[in-house]
């Protein structure tokens, strides 16, 4: 069959669709077939096995009484949830996650916005700064944890030495020995990793502000502060929202820094939900309770993800 013949056949087929007419088919909409279809199937299979099935399965596990290493068990309804929610440790983990995420996002947003504004105001060293702002993102989280563990080290760490040298601290301090200090050290370390997202998203937004708007505001006599408050800030709010939600989603699942710097300690003072899930499941072997916490954590994240989706779609529609 020559290409022309095949094309004729296709045109004929679209003129007389197999469903016997009805609404004429739109010309763009073609059928998925051949290798494209198989490869899509393969992709769906992989996503299904490792993303969708696990989600359904973890929901199932949270409703049954399962022993470590087994695949199924008798249904127990809400028992696992009742058990974990009744546990004071779970409530502590929720509180810690909330505190950790809120503060990490706040710090990252403030620092990131400041750096984005610096970049936009064409401060000296802008090119170097832009390159440097990508670095924390590119460094693997384990290495990030290592860097900060070394900086916070009691005996030989750079932070103690620096603070004592400039006179901000009278003597060396153990950063991970009491709860609140350990939590804040963790937040500092983790928010460092989030800063690039904020910088990149906000810098792009700042750059897209038309210079005419700024100029006319300046002609009307607006000073730098008023300009930021009444012109720049309202224009970057959508980008700011995206950045905040994005950072929130990732800080809610932060695991590596917690595992490597504090193991949730001292006591339970830095046990966030992701670490709590890990410890419950893989250290204590309680798959039912671990699954219940997993589902709760996923549900919490889902709310933020949906908000993110909503904001993203709205800004896409506007642009």
């Amino acid at each position, binding site marked *: 069959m020559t290409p022309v013949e095949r094309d004729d056949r296709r045109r004929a087929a679209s003129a007389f669709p197999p469903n016997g007419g009805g609404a004429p088919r739109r010309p763009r909409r073609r059928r998925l077939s051949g290798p494209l279809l198989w490869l899509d199937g393969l992709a769906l299979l*992989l996503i299904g096995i490792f993303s969708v099935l696990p989600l359904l399965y973890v929901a199932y596990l949270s409703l049954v009484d399962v022993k470590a290493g087994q695949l199924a068990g008798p249904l127990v309804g809400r028992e696992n949830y009742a058990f974990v929610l009744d546990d004071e440790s779970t409530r502590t983990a929720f509180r810690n996650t909330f505190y950790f995420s809120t503060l990490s996002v706040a710090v990252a947003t403030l620092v990131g916005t400041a750096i984005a504004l610096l970049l936009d105001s064409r401060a000296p060293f802008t090119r170097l700064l832009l390159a440097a702002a990508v670095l924390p*993102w590119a460094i693997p989280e384990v290495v990030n944890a290592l860097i900060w563990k070394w900086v916070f080290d009691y005996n030989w760490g750079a932070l103690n030495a620096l603070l004592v040298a400039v006179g901000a601290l009278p003597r060396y301090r153990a950063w991970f020995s009491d709860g609140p200090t350990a939590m804040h050290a963790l937040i500092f370390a983790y928010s460092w990793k989030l800063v690039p997202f904020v910088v990149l998203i906000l810098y792009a937004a700042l750059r897209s502000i038309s210079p005419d708007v700024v100029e006319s505001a300046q002609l009307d006599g607006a000073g730098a502060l008023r300009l930021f408050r009444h012109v720049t800030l309202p224009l970057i709010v959508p980008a700011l929202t995206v950045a905040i939600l994005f950072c929130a989603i990732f800080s809610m699942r932060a695991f590596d820094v917690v595992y*490597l710097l504090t193991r949730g300690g001292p006591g339970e003072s830095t046990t966030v939900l992701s670490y709590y899930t890990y410890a419950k499941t*893989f250290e204590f072997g309680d798959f039912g309770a671990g699954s219940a916490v997993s589902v709760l954590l996923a549900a919490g994240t889902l709310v933020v993800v949906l908000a993110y989706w909503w904001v993203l779609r709205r800004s896409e529609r506007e642009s």
Partner: protein
Amino acid sequence: MKPRWRAEPVKTAVLGLFACLSLFYLLGPPAWMLRSSLSPDTELRRVPPTLLPAAPTLRHFLVILQLPGYDEAVLRENIHFKFYRRATANSFVISLGTTLVATSLGAVTAYSISRFLGGRARRWVLLGLLVSRMLPVISVLIPIYLILLRAGLLDTLSGLVLVYSGLLLPFAIWILEAFFRQFPRDLEEAARIDGAPPFAVFARVVVPLSWNALFAAGAFVFISTWSDFIVGFIMTSTERAYPLSVVLARNMSVWREPDWGIMNAAGLFAALIPVALAFLLRGLVVRGRLAGAMKG
């Protein structure tokens, strides 16, 4: 025109000061890792520490890579030190395998979604992809562990490639779909009128013009796989499949003081490739959805 610092000296000085502070905040910690990786042990234990090592040395790197002239006594200090070479090879195999699978299948699927799905269906699929990408991995680790256990793929490289591909495919599709949607359709139209079937149009017309986007998506997948810790940590138990991040973490016990020279050298080594890739990508990152999809 006068140079800027002459025209507005105070403003430039203030901005410059803040820029320096930001640079210190962003570059200081990794620079300290670089400095420490090159310092001999005696200098690492000096109080207060010196800014630069008086006698820089490469011996920590020699040990982790087991290059000629390394100190065997140090290697025996911690059983995990001798896994670095194997783990580096493992990380390469896992990351390259995942990049290949996730980017190629992701490209095909993204293209299919952008061309064969209508508005509403496409929105739902994209939302599904976003959700599966953003939900915490830790909450699906139990089932994935059980699946690999049953399939006999725990502690194998192929098992890890499969898991990472499944986890990162939504991510690759999400990035590439945005790209293909903007791809000019006239080019495809011409090939289609010549009678080329959809796959041929994709393979011969679309792919050759999309290398930039494919490279960007591939680099993201590579960085995400290379940098992951938790999946590799749960799914491996011996040096047969340990990725680099897991060996690094296993060396960093909280219970006793790590060998800081070795740790800093290994950390720097592990960060090298993702950082290099990220700089190749920088121009591509700043745009819209790419920035929103950065993290693995």
